[in-house]
């Protein structure tokens, strides 16, 4: 058995988001305490009072960098950390803050605050739009067991791995009727598993908050979705969380354009 002799220096930061993922971290309870035995938390606004800006072995970032201050902090953290990890879908893919697109946003600002209002937010893009990120713990919110798994891998010196299976694995274990078979859209088959298929079990579709999985057969899914939803609806599904993924831009958009033309 191998153990890292010295404690990892960890920082936990949050940008624009709902802090729900940090709540998940706290709700690890005993497992969080076990984790704290192995790491030294150097900076955690939500979790402790005395915080420092040292060098970090590991930085977890929750939320989407929206203001210039947040973007600058992100770049600084990247410089000062060995592993920088996105924590939750807002950080990994833009998440909730990125759902609304820029044009719509401007319209609503105008409507709500009037033409004089100068928004502080620049854009709502995932961390990867600004810096290199070592691993993405997807999830809206993140799953407790997945946090533990990734932490175990990091602490034991492994390169964390993404799940190779789809949401459908746990969806079938849960005994859910399949939405696609019943003519209702679902992104489960192209989404990384590990979330427990909670949305489908709860009666909602999967919108892909766990990120697109390795070698997902997206065109095949689009062919299926085409038979049950119109273009706008399919767009809506893929832009909920996946708007800033490579796959959305390289596969979904061209596919929709072809379908139109």
């Amino acid at each position, binding site marked *: *058995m*191998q153990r890292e002799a010295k404690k990892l220096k960890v920082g936990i930061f949050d940008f624009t988001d709902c802090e729900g993922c940090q709540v998940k971290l706290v709700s690890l309870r005993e497992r969080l305490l076990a984790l704290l035995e192995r790491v030294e938390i150097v900076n955690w606004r939500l979790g402790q009072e005395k915080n420092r800006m040292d060098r970090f072995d590991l930085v977890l970032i929750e939320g989407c960098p929206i203001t210039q201050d947040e973007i600058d902090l992100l770049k600084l953290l990247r410089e000062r950390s060995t592993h920088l990890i996105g924590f939750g879908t807002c950080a990994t893919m833009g998440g909730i803050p990125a759902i609304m697109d820029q044009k719509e946003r401007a319209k609503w600002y105008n409507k709500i605050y009037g033409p004089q209002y100068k928004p502080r937010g620049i854009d709502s893009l995932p961390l990867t739009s600004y810096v290199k990120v070592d691993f993405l713990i997807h999830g809206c919110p993140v799953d407790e067991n997945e946090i533990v798994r990734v932490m175990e891998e990091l602490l*034991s*010196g*492994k*390169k964390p791995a993404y799940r190779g299976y789809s949401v459908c694995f746990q969806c079938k274990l849960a005994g859910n009727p399949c939405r696609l078979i019943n003519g209702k859209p679902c992104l489960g088959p192209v989404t990384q598993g590990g979330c427990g298929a909670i949305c489908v079990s709860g009666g909602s579709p999967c919108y892909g908050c766990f990120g697109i999985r390795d070698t997902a057969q997206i065109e095949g899914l689009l062919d299926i979705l085409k038979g049950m939803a119109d273009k706008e609806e399919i767009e809506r599904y893929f832009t909920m969380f996946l708007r800033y993924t490579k796959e959305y831009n390289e596969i979904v958009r061209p596919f929709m354009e072809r379908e139109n033309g």
Partner: protein
Amino acid sequence: MKNLYAPIRARVTRIEELSENVRLFRFKKDRGRFAKNHGGLTFIPGQFVMAGVWGYGESPIGILSSPYEDSFMEILVRKVGVVTNALHRLNVGDEMTIRGPYGNGFPISSFEGKDVVMVSGGCGIPPIAALIEYIIQKRERFGRVYLLYGAATPEDILARKRLDTWGRHINILLTVDHPSPEWKGHVGLVSEMVKDIEINPLNAVATMCGPGPMMTALERILRPLGISDRRIYVSLERKMQCGIGKCQHCVTGDSYVCIDGPVYNFDEIDKNWD
């Protein structure tokens, strides 16, 4: 009934750094010696062990040491992923895990009385190393024996010391692509050394190893020498998880590389469609 998935403990007794990414590990069982099969060998050359580190998993690795040795085994590990990195972090005295030996190994008794040509490159040396140790131990039972070994540079030639020892018993033809100033040997392709080989092709067997150069070895060396596909043996590599014919990862065509292989007769290889 036994839990065949649980490995036994072994202890690292020696580590040699052969290149930046390749290390040789010698290990012994925590208790007792390695069991011998009815041929008096601890394994059949060409077999592999599932070598691992607690909590990190295990990987199939060919056994390098002599099959007559029962107090230790040796493996050569190239650092490529989770398990091999974990192995590289071990120090002498640390614990590692072992299951096996597994796989079929070379049909060694059918090699007796014949000339043997072994073509290798890079990390392809482990399965042949054990075969050479075996041949040397019973040298008089084999005809002319050749090892053709090509590496990129002299530094990439693995286990130099061992090659020197072997060279007293069998013919070793070494070649490098990029010589260093001190290099006195052959420079160029392995296939250019064919002219130095004298065998009776009708009474010879051959083995090929190493990843890429297999087809070249075949086209440029073994076929020109006149050795038929039926008497050429290759060691295949497939993803493995269980090593005992259950998990389905290592399949190729109709067979399991972990139990029916890794050594295949070359004229059967086209059946391994994947």
